[in-house]
């Protein structure tokens, strides 16, 4: 059975801290790993990672994939209160392109 596991489940940090969110996966016919940010409503897309070892960056957020060890990390540097959200990791397979989600990491950044 396809599985995506995220850790930690929740995290509280102070503004300015750096956080690392983890995602491991076991998915048949794996194609890509995606990260989403979910505030009060729809998840919004952050990154799609298909190749190992290539870091993707967007402002203070960055992510990398290790296809040998089957995991990905999402880093957020200099956190701000606006980073408070649930961060979702999902594995995309080939074929029907189903996304298999982890349970998410709830991040709270306190002022």
């Amino acid at each position: 059975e396809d599985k995506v596991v995220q850790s930690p489940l929740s995290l509280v940090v102070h503004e300015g801290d750096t956080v690392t969110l983890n995602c491991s996966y076991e998915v048949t016919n794996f194609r890509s790993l995606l990260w989403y940010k979910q505030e009060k409503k729809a998840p919004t897309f952050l990154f799609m990672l298909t190749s190992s070892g290539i870091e993707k960056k967007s402002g203070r957020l960055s992510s990398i994939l290790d296809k040998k060890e089957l995991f990905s990390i999402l880093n957020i540097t200099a956190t701000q209160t606006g980073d408070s959200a649930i961060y979702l990791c999902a594995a995309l397979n080939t074929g029907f392109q189903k996304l298999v989600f982890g349970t998410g990491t709830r991040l709270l950044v306190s002022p």
Partner: protein
Amino acid sequence: DVKVTQSSRYLVKRTGEKVFLECVQDMDHENMFWYRQDPGLGLRLIYFSYDVKMKEKGDIPEGYSVSREKKERFSLILESASTNQTSMYLCASSSTRQGSEAFFGQGTRLTVV
């Protein structure tokens, strides 16, 4: 701007009622998905469709059915709503083109009383 629109943000229904959740996308995407999201369980796939009139069961299809009569519209049907179907329902769509992410609707919070 790409858009996935769900017909209701909040819905309250009685046990035993038939419930329709509608989702429309304007991106000409082939794939459409219905997920439910519950605390501690993440997003779980109910059904998906990769073409008009085609449907595939996801991980938790029991108690649900779907309909895709037009490419842009994917409906989720609760044949006889039960309290354990109280949840947040999220619709998503994606292209079959390689490297395409899924876009989500704003979600429907359904409460069954």
